[in-house]
């Protein structure tokens, strides 16, 4: 039993590695991308797609699937990396990232990409859609979960707080929200742009079952998703994930924090090598 748990963890670590690798390869294609964010959220996505969610890669619209709503559309590079790893998007399509007529545009849109459940990018909208999907699933008697990922910067948007109130009001126990707290938004550190702490207390006060974890500690992420799914209360579930931008590639992690991290042309290969080195360590 203990060993199988270790095996499962090792597999998730490998998925997280491959998601990071896919993201770096896409970044290299365009010479740009929100790679700092992709690297910080890879562990959460690995656990979502390989530890928590129920889906059929060959049938992305399978009625009983768990839904994953990417509110922060600029994280598309990360979600594509996960969808490729999950077999929903063919690996070969990775090379088209951000190109004309690609199914993988820079900002995530539902009509372009299999497995992309919403068109994000206008920040603060995902949670409102997630509330509707949660209600819609309950209306159908579905047992599926709705997952939605948004960023700490999105906490500035009023609609997030409309969604927070509503999800608790409707007792949406089929809704699991993840906030990526990397403390970085367009104009600087999120906590300085608009103070959002104490976040756990706020979420709890809004009626959510709330966990705050190190989002790059794989064991903590696994435990949090398990607890979120299995929590007996009739309330929505929140995972606040503190993450490190560039996680997995030490020289990017050490780089001056920026919403759109600078990566020089020759550095993509170095980043892949650094990631590989970390995998073997």
């Amino acid at each position, binding site marked *: 039993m203990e060993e199988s748990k270790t095996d499962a963890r090792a597999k998730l670590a490998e998925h997280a590695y491959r998601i990071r690798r896919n993201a770096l390869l896409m970044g290299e294609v365009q010479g740009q991308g929100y790679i700092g964010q992709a690297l910080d959220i890879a562990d959460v996505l690995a656990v979502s797609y390989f530890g928590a969610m129920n889906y059929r890669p060959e049938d992305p619209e399978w009625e009983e699937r768990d839904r994953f709503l990417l509110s922060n559309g600029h994280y598309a590079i990360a979600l594509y990396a996960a969808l490729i790893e999950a077999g929903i998007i063919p690996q070969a399509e990775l090379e088209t990232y951000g190109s004309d007529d690609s199914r993988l545009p820079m900002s995530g*849109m*539902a*009509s372009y990409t299999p497995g992309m*459940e*919403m*068109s994000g*990018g*206008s920040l*603060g*909208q995902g*949670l*409102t*859609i*997630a*509330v*509707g*999907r*949660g*209600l*819609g*699933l309950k*209306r*159908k008697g*579905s047992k599926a979960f709705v997952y939605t990922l948004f960023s700490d910067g999105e906490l500035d948007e*009023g*609609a997030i707080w*409309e*969604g927070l*109130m*509503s999800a608790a*009001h409707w007792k949406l126990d089929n809704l699991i929200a993840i906030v990526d707290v990397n403390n970085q938004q367009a104009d600087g550190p999120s906590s300085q742009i608009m103070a959002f702490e104490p976040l756990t207390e706020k979420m709890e006060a809004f009626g959510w079952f709330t966990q705050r974890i190190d989002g790059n500690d794989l064991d903590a992420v696994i435990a949090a998703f398990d607890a979120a799914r299995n929590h007996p209360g009739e309330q929505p579930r929140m995972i606040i994930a503190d993450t490190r931008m560039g996680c997995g590639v030490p020289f990017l992690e050490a780089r001056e924090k920026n919403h759109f991290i600078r990566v020089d042309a020759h550095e993509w290969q170095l980043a892949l090598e650094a990631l590989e080195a970390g995998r073997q360590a």
Partner: protein
Amino acid sequence: MSSTVTSKPKLKTSAMIASIAGEGQRTTAAPFGHALVKLAAERPEIVGMTADLAKYTDLHIFAQAYPERFYQMGMAEQLLMGAAAGMAHEGAIPFVTTYAVFATRRAYDFMHQTIAEDNLNVKIACALPGLTTGYGPSHQAAEDLALMRAMPGMMVIDPCDALDIEQMVPAVAVHKGPVYMRLLRGNVPAVLDEYDYRFELGKAKLIRDGRDVLVISSGIMTMRALEVAKELAADRVDVAVLHVPTIKPLDTSTILREAGRSGRLVVVAENHTTIGGLGEAVGTELLRAGVTPQFRQIALPDAFLDAGALPTLHDRYGISTSVMATTIKSWLG
């Protein structure tokens, strides 16, 4: 002090709940709510959603009939639109209500991004369209049609009366995709049943023919145009009325055919600002097709409108029957 007050003449009201029905006009109570209840019996996927305005959009009729299919989303219009999108993703057909100002101005991006971009089956029914309240600019949606016309994939409807609303509800439910419809609530005038008329999605209908003037109108302005036509008939002015309840997509062929009949003054009448509504839409189509009749617009000014009693304001801004009749006569010279 009190003697001063009693000596003043009684002031006109700017009451919120004023019906747009004229005195003695036949009305139907809550046609939207009743039509939706009737339709919902056959269409289990229909749900009702509102942002704290069920009672003021006649959606409370639906809520009473189908409490388990009614979703009160609180006074949160962005959430309302996003959640309606989520519902539609899961196969429901949400009929969403609020006031036109709150949907079109406050929640525009949510309709644009969460609903229209994904071509979702959400039907947005909004009370107090154009100038139908004396409450001032906070509640007067003088530019709602312009905003909604500009949104890709959005069908836009401006019904005239209770009959239009009753027939519009099942029609928009059949249409696959998002719809914005102006809503008349409470005791809604019943006018079009006197004519040989049926609402058809996307169709303009000639309700009355005439040799001298062609009024192209939507919404309550069609009702006004028909009254104007009766009034001007006494002066031997023959007025045709082309009702255009579907503003987008526009029934261009019917409009061109009618406007192209020579010798008639063409007047576009709308309960909306001169900018971006039916008038500009028709004018553009006429120019594109090289049809150039004498063309005039009856519409609200590009301004923050006054508060006050609705009849006063309709006179002030030229969309009451009497002022409209005078204006058209002046154009005929």
